[in-house]
């Protein structure tokens, strides 16, 4: 039986600032031995279309005045792209990334359109089952 603690994230947002937060939280949780499941839905799923992250410069609307300076600071301080952080987290620990089947259908996205870090397509009920008894974040 799996006795690790669970740490789950509903990743709804597709802006770089929030994707970074999600990737960093995932890393911390994976490092501390949690079983991490990320459920990608809506804009979060669109951000995982193949190579989208390379050209994604979207930033939270609430803080759009910070978008330019924040991006510049991250580049100057060599902060890795969020996708790289996420891939490192997957090397270190147990991280599973699932795509929401409803969003896939809605936006006509096929499994082959997604980054290889996404390992399965899941319905919300399965994800809720996955989360049970652990910590769940909505980002």
């Amino acid at each position, binding site marked *: 039986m799996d006795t690790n603690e669970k740490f789950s994230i509903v990743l709804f947002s597709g802006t770089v600032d929030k994707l970074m937060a999600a990737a*960093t939280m995932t*890393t911390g949780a994976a*490092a501390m031995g949690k079983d991490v499941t990320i459920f990608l839905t809506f804009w979060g799923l669109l951000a995982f279309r193949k190579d989208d992250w390379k050209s994604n410069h979207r930033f939270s609307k609430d803080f759009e005045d910070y978008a330019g300076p924040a991006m510049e600071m991250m580049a100057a301080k060599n902060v890795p792209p969020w996708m790289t952080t996420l891939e490192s*987290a997957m090397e*270190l620990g147990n991280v599973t990334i699932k795509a929401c089947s409803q969003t896939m259908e809605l936006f006509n996205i096929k499994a082959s359109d997604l980054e290889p870090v996404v390992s399965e397509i899941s319905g919300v009920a399965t994800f809720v089952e996955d989360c049970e008894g652990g910590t769940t974040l909505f980002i």
Partner: protein
Amino acid sequence: MEGITITREIDALGSFCPGPLMELIRSVKLAQVGDVIAVLSGDQGSMKDIPAWVNKAQQEFVGMEPAASATRFIIRKIR
């Protein structure tokens, strides 16, 4: 930390949270049991994150010492 032979030294200066911790974990995974790893971090989060991880991973936290605008953490792989 006198009298301790460091097997591997990691310079994680300029790497941001959780970068130094990630570099340490990667090294510990690749190391042999008995190896001693030192990591130099300027990230303030490391002060608590690195000891917390070492404790959770049940490795040995040998100690930490101040270095120029950074902290050097020393860890022994024991399992």
